[in-house]
């Protein structure tokens, strides 16, 4: 049985622990799963191309543009920053159909009252459209780096095709706003891959039955 996405379903959002960039273990996020994209091999100070990971079926974009910066507060050194002029953000992370997608978010923006700003997270379906619950989150402020969080969308029934991150309010300054790091994707095997796996299993079974005969 292959998993399919149904608009209106409700992937579950859980929070994890972000990695840190101070050379103190644990370096990466928790939980750890699937394939990790931490942007650390990219060149700091450059514009991020949305199709950088197209070969892996991942596309990361923002209408504001994204920049690679070396100031990650999660696993160091780099992260991607939404370059919105007013500190807001609207990032789409599109993946192949997956069972789990995790993302680290850094943001120290605060409201006029000094409270953390609200960030909205929603899973994407196969059409790149948000589906299920829109989660409103504020990033914890008590740690060594305020505004650091790690979030995982998981769905055991339907595929997830990415995450949409929206921050409508921000504090404008050069790099304030929202940054992402340590994208993790646990891919659901593609149909063709599963077919090959099945053929392989049958082949192995045939071999074993011949040897035992």
């Amino acid at each position, binding site marked *: 049985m292959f998993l399919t996405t149904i608009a209106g379903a409700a992937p579950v959002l859980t929070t994890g622990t972000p990695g840190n960039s101070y050379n103190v273990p644990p370096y990466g996020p928790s939980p750890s799963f699937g394939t990790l994209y931490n942007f650390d091999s990219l060149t700091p100070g450059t514009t991020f191309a949305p199709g950088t990971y197209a070969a892996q079926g991942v596309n990361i974009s923002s209408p504001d543009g994204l920049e690679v910066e070396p100031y990650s507060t999660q696993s160091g050194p780099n992260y991607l920053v939404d370059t919105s002029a007013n500190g807001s953000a609207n990032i789409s992370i599109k993946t192949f159909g997956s069972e789990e997608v995790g993302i680290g978010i*850094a943001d120290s923006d605060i409201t006029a009252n000094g409270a953390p700003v609200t960030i909205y997270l929603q899973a994407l379906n196969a059409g790149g459209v948000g589906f299920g619950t829109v989660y409103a989150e504020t990033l914890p402020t008590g740690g060594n780096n305020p505004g*650091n969080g790690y979030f995982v969308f998981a769905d055991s029934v339907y595929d997830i095709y990415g995450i949409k991150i929206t921050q409508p309010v921000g504090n404008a300054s050069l790099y304030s706003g929202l940054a992402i790091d340590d994208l993790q994707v646990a891919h659901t095997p593609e149909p063709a891959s599963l077919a090959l796996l099945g053929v392989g299993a049958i082949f192995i079974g045939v071999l074993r039955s011949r040897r035992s005969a």
Partner: protein
Amino acid sequence: MRSFLSITTSTVLCFGLAVDPSFASGRVNTATCDLSRPASESAKPNSACAVTPTTPIEHVVIIFGENISFDHYFGVYPKALNPPGEPRFTALPGTPAVNGLTPALLTSNPNLNSANGAGAANPFRLNRNQPLTADQNHAYAPEQASFDEGAMDLFPLKTGAGGNISVPYPPVVNTNGLVMGYYDGNTVTAMWNYAQHYALSDNSYNSNFGPSTPGAINLISGQTNGISAHLNGTGDEVADGQGNLTLVGDADPIGDVCSAPTRNQVTMSGKNVGDLLNAAGLSWGWFAGGFDLTVTNPNGTTGCNRSTVSPVFGENLSGDYIPHHQAFQYYTSTANPKHTRPTNVASIGLAGDAGNHNYDIHDFFDALAAGNLPAVSYLKAQAYQDAHPGYSDPLDEQAFVVNVINALQKSPFWGTTAVMIAYDDSDGWYDHQQAPILNGSFTNQDSLSGPNACGTQGTTPQLPGPNSGGLPVNGRCGPGVRTPLQVISPWAKPNYVDHTLTDQSSTLRFIEDNWNLGRIGGGSFDATAGTINTMFDFSKSTPQNATPLILSPTTGLPQ
């Protein structure tokens, strides 16, 4: 007579001067002084008052950090980059400018000078995930050489050292150009927040060039000349021209059980502020991390080898106790060479206490909690929190400083306390501002104004040593590199930047003046040091800056 004097109406012959719990009013209760009762038995917290202070300040606490130049922490104050996820800093309206890194210095810095080779660089921002860096060269001669006779353009070549950094960005951090790095309010967040609410000097300097020990000695005596004994050579000294030696390097104190046996060691002659405080009957103490040799650290280390793993960078790169940072151990009259423990918590700081005024940093907190805050306290953090590059960092330093100040602000002493944050040297980090040469020196280690010269012989003043018969001595070229100086007190001017020319012995002068102790004399810099009284507002009878500022020790943000 200024109006505040009306609240300290008589000379108090005791160490038990108590502060009225309504300290915010600034009123001092002089009626409860009771020499016979230890602090733990007193209904009100003890202070220390053999003589009437000339200002409302009854307690001076000097946090003496390590190895920071002014531009390294405050060069771009009050503008922080504010990357996502880091503690945000936005300056209050009306924040005054500092003499910092101008656009021209940031983009066309003289240290782009090709003589600096691969290290030629403009100043650049170090990020909060780069707290641990390589240690720069901060010896007496290279620091002068980096000034290039006033051109201020040879820091990478003369004092720079690269590497040892968690995030190798920008690439210049792996070259001597690392010396041009600076932090902003996203890393030194607490320091910037204190500056927003209290007083910051942008014109304060090392009394003379050189590393930790001369800085520590100048802090308490203003005099690095007059070495009375030395062991294991004289590598950290220079001939003073009058048959004696001047300390210019990091010799260990003779007799300290933790001094390295084969390292150059010295004893200083002359007086220090401890002698003056003793003569006046005032309580005082030097509180140093790792001093208590009876403690076993969580990692199992003991004695002189106690050490601590930094929670920021996850390594243990130094013992907690560093003998050549301990100023009073160099003077026979004020040393505690065997690290004898205090008689009890209530006697900490008092004459006759077994610790002879030298204690562990935990003794400071223990005494404070017991209602015993000496008149003068010098605090030296355990090494991993002292800010020294190579084994400490600004975030560990921040945790120490904030914990001290939070504890004081929550104590009943706060209404009459002044905290001063000062540094022993610059580490060699870039700073663009040179002070006028106020004290000359003419040795082969001097180059500030030309070969073998700091100043003009016969023209530039040159102070004597304690035993030179009034004749000028060499090895005290200064002022040296500019370092931060902050005053945090209910009596400090709020969000104020002071431009008065001061040096390390200015805090010494403040203590002397505050209790009418007289001067060290014998060529001490205290005679010529600029005043830091301009960082206070003593014009009213009540403190005008009484609202405490409690910060987070991890983020430096207000709590």
